[in-house]
């Protein structure tokens, strides 16, 4: 394959650079090949600017029908892999048709770009942003080069953030009351709460709190739902008696969470749940799931 590719080696190299590349925050994203790469992070309404440089193979002349750069926001559903749906598409012409003899650099700028959705790599769906340079050619195929970047959008601290409080149970068997101090958490938040045992007639072995992600893609009959357990956090060991109250303190930092995404471009949703699970001595599981809203809070001090 390499040999063949070598034979059809493109007649030029294309480099795309961002103007503030060195100072801009870099975040890891998963590439097509499964490897993680560091890419610059932007947020909605930022200006994306930089340079494209085209360097023809020395001694060769590159004839083209025009050079353009596109900024694309794309959603790819895995049941329809390879088919990208562009929800954002902006174009800048870099060069009118002609010939390139030597290395040439073109500045570009997309000012205050609206990028309402965040970059996301899920189980059945991916949302990505790319800059794509196309050198148009007659008869032979176009030459393209693209570069990923990441979009992250921040939310302010919600004004209303009620606690989650509920009494649940199985009649004459188990009654508990749980309380989580908030219903909306930022990605580096701490879940604080308590579980209060009102009635215990079963032999409980332990209790854990799970964080579950529910990703639903497609619509109608083509809806795919994937639920992943991202955290299993043991809260209690042993059998409590009536009247015991067990503290909850779960730091979210260690887990790879994203904000809650609701109906992104009618294509997918990502929701988060806290699942309280009690396990009895026969390994039966009793659970109660509660949705929580995740949001990305602007970090004041950017640390690694």
């Amino acid at each position, binding site marked *: 394959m390499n040999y063949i590719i070598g034979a059809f080696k493109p007649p030029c190299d294309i480099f795309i650079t961002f103007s503030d590349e060195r100072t801009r925050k870099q975040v890891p994203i998963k590439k097509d090949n499964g490897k993680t790469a560091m890419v610059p992070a932007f947020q909605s309404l930022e200006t994306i600017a930089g340079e494209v440089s085209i360097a023809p193979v020395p001694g060769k002349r590159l004839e083209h029908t025009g050079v353009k750069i596109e900024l694309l926001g794309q959603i790819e559903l895995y049941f329809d892999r390879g088919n990208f749906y562009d929800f954002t598409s902006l174009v800048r012409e870099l060069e009118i048709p002609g010939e390139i003899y030597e290395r040439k650099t073109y500045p570009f700028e997309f000012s205050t770009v609206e990028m309402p959705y965040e970059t996301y790599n899920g189980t059945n769906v991916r949302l990505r942003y790319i800059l794509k340079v196309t050198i148009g050619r007659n008869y032979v195929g176009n030459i393209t080069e693209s570069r990923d970047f990441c979009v992250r959008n921040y939310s302010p601290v919600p004004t209303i953030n009620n606690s989650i409080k509920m009494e649940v149970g199985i009649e004459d068997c188990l009654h508990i009351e749980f309380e989580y101090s908030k219903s909306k958490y930022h990605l580096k938040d701490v879940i604080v709460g308590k579980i209060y045992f009102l009635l215990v007639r079963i032999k409980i072995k332990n209790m854990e709190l799970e964080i579950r992600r529910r990703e639903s893609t497609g619509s109608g009959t083509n809806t795919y739902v994937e639920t992943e357990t991202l*955290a299993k956090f043991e809260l*209690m*060991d042993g*059998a*409590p008696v009536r009247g015991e109250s067990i*503290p909850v303190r779960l730091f979210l930092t260690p887990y790879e969470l994203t904000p809650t995404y609701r109906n992104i471009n009618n294509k997918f949703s990502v929701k988060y749940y806290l699942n309280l699970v009690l396990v009895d001595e026969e390994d039966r599981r009793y659970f109660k799931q509660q949705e929580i809203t995740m949001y990305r809070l602007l970090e004041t001090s950017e640390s690694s």
Partner: protein
Amino acid sequence: MAAASAAVRMLPDGGADDEERWLAEGIAGVQQNAFYMHRALDSNNLLKDALKYSAQMLSELRTSSRLSPHKYYELYMRAFDEMRKLEMFFREETRRGSCSVVDLYELVQHAGNVLPRLYLLCTVGSVYIKSKEAPAKDVLKDLVEMCRGIQHPLRGLFLRSYLSQISRDKLPDIGSEYEGDADSINDAVEFVLQNFIEMNKLWVRMQHQGPVREKEKRSKERNELRDLVGKNLHVLSQIEGVDLDMYKETVLPRILEQVLPEFLQVEAFAKFSNAIGKVIEAQPDMPVVGAVTLYVSLLTFTLRVHPDRLDYVDQVLGACVKKLSGKAKLEDSRATKQIVALLSAPLEKYSNIVTALELSNYPRVMDYLDNATTKVMAVIESLFDLIKGLIKDMDGAQDDELDEEDFKEEQNSVARLIHMLHNDDHEEMLKILCTVQKHILQGGPKRLTFTVPSLVFSALKLVRRLQGQDGDVTGEDVPATPKKIFQILHQTIEALSCVPSPELALRLYLQCAEAANDCDLEPVAYEFFTQAFILYEEEIAYSAKLLKKPDQCRAVYACSHLFWTDDQDGIMDGERYLYFFEKGIPQITNTVIQDLIELIRTEKQSDNTAADPLTEAFFASTLRYIEFQKQKGGSIGEKYEQIKTT
């Protein structure tokens, strides 16, 4: 047989072998992970690895259910030694500034399993307090709270024992380098007490969890763990800043609350009792309230530990009476409150006044309170307030759920209590009676039949006492006159009409009438008789209508006997009328007999009366008797002549 017993003997041996193997596996697990942990510690900058392996090492302590406390202790000690090393490493790391202690405190909480997480948290907590970056009390409070995550008794006990161990030299005691604000000593005590209370709860729970057949084994295991719990008391005794007041007000009551029957063993009562006696003796200036408070504590303890030893409870009350006897009136409202607490504790515990009343010193304490005249009513009020569940229908309480027998027993108890209320001073006694009356009249119909008689007889007793001291009764200013008491009695008995329990009321009226008669209060006696008769006419005679028709007839016969009591000879029921008739009593005329016969006949013929062969036979024989007498002639025969039997 021989084979079977051999097999039985084999089992425990096999179990012990297994246990040895599990312990060995556990120790191997600890050692292996400790090795990796050390390697991470040695190579620096591998904090995450160090945490990972230490958590894995501590995970060995999670699989404890198979080990006896003794073996678990061995495993725990292995891990404990390693944790000391980890603590030193943490201290070094934070001192070098490569990781802040606050970050570390968060980082260890990322561990997914609760037991390793809490061991690590306690370990970092120790470093945190030492760093003084946060007040010791805050860290300790957090640790003692978070440890609630371990509800497994054995694992919880060891974890909390670890907490106690690492914190004992870091309490915000007075004079300690960790001393905090003005309330520091409270924080120190509060922490130790809370950890102790939680440990004690876990320890007690051990007895009740698990299969019944292993109960004995668990008892043995618990004994092995007793010292673990008791160590907290030792730590508590080492706190410098605890003074007598604090010990008395906070520490002792809280500890006593926790102490359960098996704990501190049998002589505890004697020891405490002695100690308290000495404390009180040694401090003659101690206010009464202090002494009584101590007795309340002791009593609470006794009721918990020896609920079956009424003699102990009585002893405490007795000691209290003795102490109080030398004192002047109780003017201190706090002391009075404590006495009320003293009196109410047994009531609450036994929720049964009968038991409380078996305590010979109980009324003595109450008697003593009588000295503080102004308080008497308050005490009785509060006494009744305490048992209000017994003396009136509580809101929402469902009568149909009440066990009839329990209810009767309860009410009998209340009745007995009323009898117990006694005061030598007649005026006071009258006040007591008024208070009691006020309370029991709210009791509702079901209770009145039990409570009213006791009150009536109690009041009559007072009447007789007043009667005994002739001269005094005449004084006009004296409020406690028999007349007044009779008024109260009248009101009280009247209340019975709503029950309705006319027969009881009738009897009580008659009793009162008799008493009034003895007091030479003729109008009063007359009034009572009047009431009795009215009652009889309206209620008792009326009640006859409710009976079945044939019974009615018999009831009418029987009633006749009430008017003319004659003991001379036993005459069978039905023959009474004729008997009286024959005796020539003027009210029984031949018309009456005739009416009676007609009445019986009508009743017999009415549709809804099932024919009763016995009644039938009896009536027929009566009629035959009348006929026979007619035929026999003579003076009796003449009397019967006008009665038609057909």
